[in-house]
């Protein structure tokens, strides 16, 4: 009798979410019940899920078969290290987000709170099932349920046309991606036609089939993750959704795509080719650069974060691709390093991006504004949100000693060991990629300074901002959980790496636990202390020591006198809030330096305009290069085919007649 307690527990949590959702829809207008009981309960379940998953990562593989699904293909569920890790991510992030959501959803608004509750919890449960699924059908059902519920969550304010458009685009891309995934499963099941993952693992593929399966999976999961040419839905959908949902989508849902791709690449396909890794690497790099550049020029705070998500997914893919390259060149230890960086970054991104999205939610609630150009100075009104957001901003910008830095550090480390690869071009290429990563990290800092500075610092740009209020208690608790997560993940990297060890062992047959455990908890040295080491504890500790010391010394030696005066500003007397940099102004250097990336529409006033107007719209060129032509082609197809249905009965009869004659002649011949 094998131990199935963990997976049963996980299943119970997922079912619990479904039940909570059901209760929500049973009492659609009972606001207090939903916000004070159901959502917090969901958060507790999330925590339970995280704890169970944590035990599941290192534990034995557990499988069960549910009596649901197709008659020949019941739902197979399986818990191993990989799914355990991503479930941990889901549980940990959702605990914070659900707590926040309990305080976030207000009366009124678009969709009834009960319905929100149902959709939200089904969304959570479907993500859990995605990670547990062990056959193609269960996976697809969970996957599409996830897409569907998140679509409805995105469109909960469906009265706005742009939100409808965003939802449409999102579901369409998700659906097209799902088709790719399904095809990939189909290729992997091959002639055996058995869609359990076990059968796919066993099935031997010939020739190009594994590559086709892999490429289809990249397409399918890439659409969900927002990889470069398929990213267009992401900056539309994330801003459209209510903030907890944006947080969930960006923090967790994008990771399900990474999970799926890892499952396919490392688990279901037996062998990997090195250039698969290169493909992922290049796509990831393109997404990261593109994402970060666009993130830096956005004027809508949620769009800014959405593009930043594209960037982070790109970074994750870069690490993933590197892991594939190392593994295919039989360098398992380096593969483990790259993969650890990747997984670590997944976890980090879940925390800091959820945190930031939730902060934008609070800002949105307090001010009703998403446009950066109408915010500012909120640090005085919303200190909690501001300081917690600062943690997220620093983590997102990849600054020590927070968590974002650790994973970027690991990633850069893994790039530094590429010179051992037996492939000339790769040797040359990979350091350049590392250089690009450095650029991306620096640009991310730029974008984050812009985000934080314009929203929270400076003077309020609108009158009404004076009425802004800080987040409520539950919201603060949710934010705090995520911020603490960012700090803890940053300060205790060795514990995280030890936790990731079973996962990398499962995927690339090597792990970093030996290196991580040999130096104690405070020093991170993945290869050896001589080669590279980083100790966030000392780092943070010394800054934390220096600061009060300096403060104390200055006070002690000199004085603490201070008086409030009007701002100096080089003596300029007529300061107004409109003289600060706007979001556009702050992004101007980026627009200028990276102008080939953008499609710009500009209108400059002439010298004689009595009412000068300035207009600058920056758009995604990929929309025009790729999607508009595709829609044109389809439109052309419909126009062509419409000629067939031309209304005349004689013509219709002629079709029947011709069909009959042709078939008769063919059959006879």
């Amino acid at each position, binding site marked *: 009798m094998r131990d199935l307690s963990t997976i049963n527990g996980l299943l119970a949590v997922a079912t619990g979410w479904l039940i909570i959702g059901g209760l929500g829809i049973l009492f659609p207008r009972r606001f207090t019940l939903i916000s004070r009981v159901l959502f917090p309960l969901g958060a507790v379940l999330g925590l339970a899920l995280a704890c169970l998953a944590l035990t599941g990562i290192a534990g034995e593989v557990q499988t069960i078969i549910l009596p649901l699904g197709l008659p020949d293909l019941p739902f197979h569920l399986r818990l191993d290290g990989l799914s355990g890790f991503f479930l941990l991510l889901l549980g940990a992030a959702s605990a914070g987000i659900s707590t926040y959501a309990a305080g976030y959803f207000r009366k009124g608004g678009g969709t009834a709170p009960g319905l929100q509750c149902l959709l939200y919890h089904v969304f959570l449960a479907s993500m859990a099932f995605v990670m547990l699924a062990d056959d193609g059908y269960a996976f697809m059902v969970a996957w599409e349920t996830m897409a569907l519920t998140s679509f409805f969550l995105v469109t909960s304010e469906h009265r706005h046309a742009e939100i409808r458009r965003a939802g449409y685009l999102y579901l369409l891309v998700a659906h097209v991606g799902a088709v790719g995934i399904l095809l990939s499963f189909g290729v992997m099941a091959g002639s055996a036609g058995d869609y359990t993952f076990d059968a796919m693992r066993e099935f031997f593929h010939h020739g190009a089939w594994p590559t086709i399966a892999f490429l289809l999976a990249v397409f399918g999961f890439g659409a969900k993750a927002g990889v470069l040419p398929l990213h267009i839905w992401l900056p539309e959908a994330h801003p459209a959704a209510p903030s907890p949902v944006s947080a969930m989508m960006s923090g967790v849902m994008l990771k399900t795509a990474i999970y799926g791709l890892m499952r396919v690449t490392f688990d279901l396909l037996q062998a990997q080719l090195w250039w698969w890794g290169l493909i992922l690497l290049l796509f990831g790099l393109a997404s990261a650069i593109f994402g970060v550049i666009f993130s830096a020029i956005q004027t809508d705070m949620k769009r800014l974060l959405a593009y930043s998500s594209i960037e982070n997914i790109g970074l994750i893919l870069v690490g993933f691709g590197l892991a594939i390259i190392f593994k295919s060149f039989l360098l398992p230890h380096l593969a483990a390093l790259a993969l650890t960086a990747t997984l670590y970054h997944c976890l980090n991104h879940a925390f800091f991006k959820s945190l930031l999205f939730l902060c934008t939610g609070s800002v949105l609630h307090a001010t009703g504004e998403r446009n950066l150009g109408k915010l500012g100075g909120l640090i005085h009104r919303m200190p909690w949100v501001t300081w917690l957001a600062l943690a997220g901003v620093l983590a997102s910008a990849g600054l020590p000693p927070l968590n974002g830095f650790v994973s970027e550090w690991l990633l850069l480390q893994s790039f530094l060991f590429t010179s051992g690869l037996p492939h000339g071009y790769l040797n*040359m290429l990979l350091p350049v990629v590392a250089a690009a990563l450095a650029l991306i990290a620096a640009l991310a800092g730029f974008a984050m300074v812009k985000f934080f500075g314009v929203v929270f*610092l*400076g003077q309020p740009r609108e009158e009404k901002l004076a009425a802004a209020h800080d987040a409520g208690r539950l919201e603060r608790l949710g934010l705090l959980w995520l911020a603490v997560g960012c700090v803890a993940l940053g300060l205790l990297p060795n514990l995280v790496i030890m936790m990731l060890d079973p996962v990398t062992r499962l995927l690339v047959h090597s792990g970093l636990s030996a290196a991580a455990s040999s130096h104690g908890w405070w020093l991170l040295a993945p290869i050896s202390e001589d080669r590279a080491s980083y100790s966030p504890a000392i780092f943070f500790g010394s800054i934390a020591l220096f600061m009060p010391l300096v403060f104390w010394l200055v006070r002690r030696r000199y004085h603490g006198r201070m008086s409030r005066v009007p701002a100096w500003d080089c003596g300029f007397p007529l300061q107004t809030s409109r003289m600060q940099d706007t979001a556009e102004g702050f992004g101007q250097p980026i627009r200028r330096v990276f102008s080939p990336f953008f499609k710009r529409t500009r209108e400059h006033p002439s010298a004689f305009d009595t009412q000068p107007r300035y207009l600058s719209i920056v758009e995604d060129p990929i929309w025009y290069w790729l999607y508009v032509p595709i829609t044109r082609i389809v439109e052309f197809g419909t126009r062509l085919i419409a000629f067939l249905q031309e209304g005349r009965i004689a013509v219709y009869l002629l079709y029947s007649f011709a069909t009959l004659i042709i078939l008769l002649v063919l059959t006879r011949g």
Partner: protein
Amino acid sequence: MNFYALFAQLLELIVALILAPMLTGWVNQCRAWMQNRSAPPLLQTYYTLSKLFHKDVLLAHNASTLFRAAPYIVFSCMALASAIVPTLSTELIFSPAADAIALVGLFALARIFISLAGMDVGTSFGSLGSRREMFIGFLAEPALLMVFFTASLISHSTSLATIVETLAHKEFAIYPSLAFSGIAFMMVSLAENARVPIDNPTTHLELTMIHEAMILEYSGRHLALIEWASCLKLFAYSCLGIALFFPFGVAQAFDPIALTLASAILVAKLALGGFTLALIETLSAKMRVFRAPEFLGTAFLLAVLAMLVHLLLEAGR
């Protein structure tokens, strides 16, 4: 050994804190000489700092806690940075705590806080300065990282101590890649330390200032800390340059004589470095802000080129 490391570390930190303003003073002095001006005293920076520390702080009405905390954070970061860079010895307590990448991260942390502080009061110059600072930063940071990467590829390590040891104490070898990265490093340092041709630390001319625009609202002890942090930054960068490209003379093991010698050599190198900086500043003119990408892009390309050169020519070593 631990005692030695602690001692060396403390010594290095104190030397940095004390010498940094003097380095700035030295640069200013040299520059004045070269420009045929009468030079300020070498210790002028100390006087300025002391005066600032004694003055009252005048805080804008809108300034927040972040604004007041930023000088301390920036100062701590720079102090830590100068403690990390192995100038006198490679046996330091902090050396395993942060490698080259973490050092870059540390600089970035300081930069972000100073930029945020610049935006905090909400004046036109403050946000202008922050924007430009971040702009210069995102161009300079990758170039700096690439410089480090070349060095780490040579020494198979990103740990600064190991890099310096490798470069200083192994048998003499000519690394052409280091020439490229040396130039790149110099360009990055000029940009990062708000020097001509990117910025001019002595000007308050509205349209051209970068660093000064950000700290326009600071006064009293806050300004003093920031100025001191700037000095520390210049000092740290200079030491970095010395450590990476002219590392000879760094003390390796516990040896008071070596340490003393190292200190002496360091002062000499710094003096030379400061003179060079003044020379460059005198010889070149300040660029328009949007020429900066070209300047720093060149630095970035040189750094990448250095890495490729290393991979091509020196791969066997």
